């Protein structure tokens, strides 16, 4: 604080003096709370900040389902789900550190402003110790910054941009979801096997930070296997009709189209590319192919038949066969009658991981939680052994390469797992140039005291 | 030399020659009426005086200065006020506010930003506006909402607004159009009173011969965009050409 700063205590005195006729100074909260929103009662509140309106509302809804399930499991209701398979065994189903878990929800509207407003209300009004959620990188980064300033923990859910744990990484923020670099690293070898190393790729990229980082990552990874990047065209977000961007692709000499789009944009650009008959064409003597680097179940449902045979990557999928996945899918499926999406999985896991870290640390103090999570290695929550790297708070684990199924039997298995890319292949140094280089730093953990 | 000198004015709308070679001189402190059958070009001519239309040919001089090419508010600031056929007032404001706007426009000119003065503290303006309202016998209606008044009252208000600017020339576009006989007579009386009280020139476009002959000192008869004759009321009454073109049908 600067020298002229009025200290918290000083301010309270002033406040008390003005209100002296009405109240005694003692009724003001003592500044004694050790950290922001220290839970003092018999319960602890978590904030689930997801999009409930706007284009990603469906993702938000599925995340919310998973959060509610996680709270149930933490409080000892239900079958415990993946808590039973989790390698760390400190969670006992009695809440967190014996405090019952309660939660508040908010609507991010997929806008940084609204997300920050909602998160602030959770911190200021409801007194949460941790916020989780998000379905866009801009929102995740904005809320992560807020959590850092306010002194609470942010467990990011769906955010794929390199920046979240790259140049915008924060000590109080953790990301379980994979990122654009990992997508590229996982996809490239599979693409090489499937389409050969002599390919010319044309990128259509959503014109904002996530799109750019993904395009950069995919281009770098595919160029490393010998592909040539013919062109990269930036498309406006929410363009709706992509025809004028798709039409020139064939004439450019490219034989692969990479769609760096997400959500509705991806559904539309893929559908329209198929309508233009791109996949039926033969260019340079090769079958024309389309790649969608980042997949989600909801996008796959939106794109319907068009995703058949199209490669992409995912953080997790319910079709995995490990015990953690099976336990989670079983309890989610029994509660909601449908398999969970990848974002639901991240939401669930992040909540358990936070509860576990608090329990191991024996404190809700954010700095203690950060310490407990940094370098934490665990297993049993789906997709195998995972490391929360201390340098950038990114989780490292295997990455799934997916493909649109040719003959899906239900609406839920429209994507099939082609390969589980081992974690070594998607590793990168924390000071990688795509992640802010050596300048990027987590800063100090902030407990708000 | 009249206060308003119109020379050789012509105006064309597409295929229609609305005005051609109009010459007119309105003497200072006189009441000059312009009459003519429907479509004779009376309103077009008036619009050429106030800056709403720019004639294709000719000149319009007011007080020795050309008005052509000037915007309506500039011409108004030169000293020409206009009363419309349908009263144009500020319907959402009170009667008093209507008149005060004119007083401000007269005192402060076309634009002056004065956000930190208070209307209620402008004693001079208030006094002036009240005088104007009492001149038209509307002081008792000062707080009324202008749009809710009768048409006759709206007309009187509009006159008060025009007079508040102390114009040299008052243009009246059919001031009694659509009025009942009694209202018409009141308006005539009001105009006479105004004329008596101050030095003002009036140019009236009118359909109602009763009004014209009660007020006008000189009359110009317009037919098919050209002045037919210009003379005193007495002479106009008996003029054969006028009878043929106009009076025969309506009087």
């Amino acid at each position: 604080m600067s020298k002229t700063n009025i200290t918290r205590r000083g301010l309270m005195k002033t406040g008390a003096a003005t209100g002296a006729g009405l109240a005694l100074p003692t009724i003001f909260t003592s500044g004694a709370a050790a950290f922001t929103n220290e839970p003092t009662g018999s319960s602890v509140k978590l904030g689930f900040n997801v999009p409930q309106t706007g284009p990603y509302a469906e993702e938000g809804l599925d995340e919310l389902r998973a959060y509610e399930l996680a709270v149930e499991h933490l409080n000892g209701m239900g079958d415990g789900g993946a808590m039973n398979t989790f390698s760390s065994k400190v969670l006992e189903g009695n809440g967190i550190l014996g405090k019952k878990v309660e939660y508040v929800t908010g609507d991010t509207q997929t806008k940084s402003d609204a997300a920050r407003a909602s998160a602030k209300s959770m911190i200021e009004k409801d007194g949460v110790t941790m916020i989780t959620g998000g379905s866009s990188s801009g929102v995740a980064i904005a809320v992560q910054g807020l959590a850092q300033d306010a002194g609470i923990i942010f467990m990011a859910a769906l955010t794929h941009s390199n920046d979240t744990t790259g140049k915008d990484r924060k000590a109080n923020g953790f990301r379980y979801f994979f990122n654009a670099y990992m997508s590229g690293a996982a996809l490239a070898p599979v693409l090489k096997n499937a389409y050969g190393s002599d390919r010319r790729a044309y990128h259509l990229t959503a014109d904002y930070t996530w799109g750019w980082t993904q395009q950069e990552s995919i281009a770098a990874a595919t160029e490393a296997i010998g592909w040539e990047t013919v062109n990269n065209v930036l498309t406006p977000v929410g363009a709706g009709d992509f025809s004028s961007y798709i039409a020139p692709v064939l004439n450019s000499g490219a034989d692969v189209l990479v769609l760096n789009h997400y959500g509705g944009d991806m559904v539309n650009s893929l559908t329209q590319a198929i309508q233009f008959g791109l996949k039926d064409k033969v260019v340079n003597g090769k079958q024309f192919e389309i790649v969608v680097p980042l997949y989600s179940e909801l996008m796959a449902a939106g794109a319907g038949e068009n995703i058949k045979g199209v490669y992409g990557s995912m953080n997790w999928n319910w079709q995995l066969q490990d015990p953690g996945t099976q336990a989670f899918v079983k309890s989610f499926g029994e509660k909601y009658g449908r398999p969970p999406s990848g974002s639901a999985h991240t939401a669930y896991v992040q909540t358990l991981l936070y509860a576990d870290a608090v329990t191991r640390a024996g404190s809700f103090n954010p700095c203690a939680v950060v310490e407990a999570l940094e370098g934490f290695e665990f297993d049993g929550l789906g997709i195998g052994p995972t490391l929360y790297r201390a340098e950038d708070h990114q989780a490292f684990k295997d990455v799934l390469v997916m493909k649109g199924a040719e003959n899906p039997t239900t609406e839920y298995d429209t994507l099939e797992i082609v390969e589980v890319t081992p974690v070594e292949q998607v590793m990168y140094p924390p000071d990688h140039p795509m992640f802010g280089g050596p300048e990027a730093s987590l800063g100090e953990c902030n407990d708000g005291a | 030399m009249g206060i308003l000198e119109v020379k050789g004015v012509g105006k064309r709308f597409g295929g229609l020659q609305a005005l051609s070679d109009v010459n007119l001189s309105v003497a200072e402190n006189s009441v000059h009426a312009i009459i003519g059958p429907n479509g004779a070009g009376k309103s077009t001519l008036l619009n050429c005086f106030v800056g709403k239309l720019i004639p294709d040919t000719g000149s319009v001089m007011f007080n020795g200065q050309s008005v052509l090419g000037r915007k309506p508010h500039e011409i108004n600031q030169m000293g020409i006020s206009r009363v419309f056929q349908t009263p144009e007032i500020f319907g959402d404001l009170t009667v008093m506010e209507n008149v005060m706007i004119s007083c401000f426009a007269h005192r402060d000119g076309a634009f002056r930003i004065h956000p930190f003065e208070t209307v209620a503290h402008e004693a001079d303006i208030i006094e002036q506006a009240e005088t104007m309202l009492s001149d038209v016998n509307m002081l008792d209606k000062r707080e009324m909402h202008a749009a809710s008044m009768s048409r006759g009252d709206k007309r009187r208000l509009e006159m008060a607004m025009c007079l508040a600017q102390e114009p040299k020339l008052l243009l009246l576009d059919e001031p009694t159009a659509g009025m009942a006989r009694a209202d018409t007579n009141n308006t005539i009386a009001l105009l006479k009173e105004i004329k008596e009280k101050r030095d003002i020139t009036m140019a009236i476009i009118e359909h109602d011969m009763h009004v014209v002959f009660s007020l006008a000192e000189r009359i110009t008869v317009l037919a098919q965009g050209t002045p037919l004759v210009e003379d005193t009321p007495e002479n106009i009454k008996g003029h054969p050409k006028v009878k043929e073109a106009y009076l025969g049908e309506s009087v």
Partner: protein
Amino acid sequence: MKFLGLSAKDTRFLLIVILLTLATPIILQPFPEGSGLATFNAGYPDLMQRFAIFGIFAIGFNILFGLTGYLSFGHAAFLGIGSYTVVWMYKLLDYNVIWGLPLAVVTSGLFALLIGYISLRRSGIYFSILTLAFAQMSYNLAYSVLTPITNGETGLQVYSNDPQVLISEGETSPHFFGIVMNESAKLNLGDWQFTFNNGYYFTAIIAIVVFYISLRIFRSPFGLMLRAIKTNQTRLNYTGINTRPYTLAAFVISGMYAGLAGGLMAAMDPLAGAERMQWTASGEVVLMTILGGAGTLMGPILGAGFIKYFENIFSKINDQVLHGWFEWMPDGLEDFIIGLSHFFVGKSWHLTLGLLFMLVVIFLPGGLVEGGTRIWHAIRRDRKPKGPDPEHHPEHIPHVAEKEEF
């Protein structure tokens, strides 16, 4: 009782507004903590700040739209410009808001001058679309091409490698000469907890000042001219008034209010997102003004509070909260009520807002203030049936949709 050049009635009005504003942290916290209805409490810093900030935005917008009738659909652009200016000052100088806020007013004023000068060449819907076009261009560019200046989707924020040439030790968040915006004092009275936040009071004092300015503008000859523009531009032109500079002045003033509001947003929370320039944000202030009552002094502020309240409170009502309220009911009925509530709260809060827009405009034409006044008069008339109406309230005059002009 008169002061600052106001009439006795206005002074009373201003004093009430000041009192309400200062007591907001108490008024908005009517329910005890932990009770089921605590969800409806709005007395936490972020929302109170938003009430004040959007109040300022709407007050300014009202000077343009409420007085002159010119409906701008692009005022969010100035909000964004104000925010970006303030965050840039954080990045370049330090976290003291004293550098950014005045500059935010100036830059948004300059942009308003430029955009207003061009847009005011047209009137009616053509003017609206021109302002919309400018704002949408600003938004689209800020979101993508101008990312080096605006940090695009993420929003402009301070990074540790920013110059911050004036920064002093330990300065980590916005402050006004050491009064740190996000610090609060809390007062516990029984089960009630009241939060007195520095940022809120900073915004509230500015809001009172700009409200006073708007009151003065309403009562000034300038304000009278602006109202005259709304009711009859033709007459005004023939009364010797050049309307363009008046509308431009109103446009610039309201743009500066918007810039101030945007600057304050960044002063409360040092991040400026591009979405605050989007057409929906411009539309929001239009809705606030109309909902509260365009052209009335208090209306826009009420409208702003109304919309922000729904956005922040209703969106947070989830199943857990609903169960808390209705658990005393028999199971079947509880499920039914909760199922029904899903239409209106939580993820469906937009629906409630939409319905309320419709209800207000259908049953309270002229907005909340007009409606409230009418109800008030109806009650008073009941009490003393023969008492004359002391303030004249005009009946509604239908707009003339088409007015022929050459």
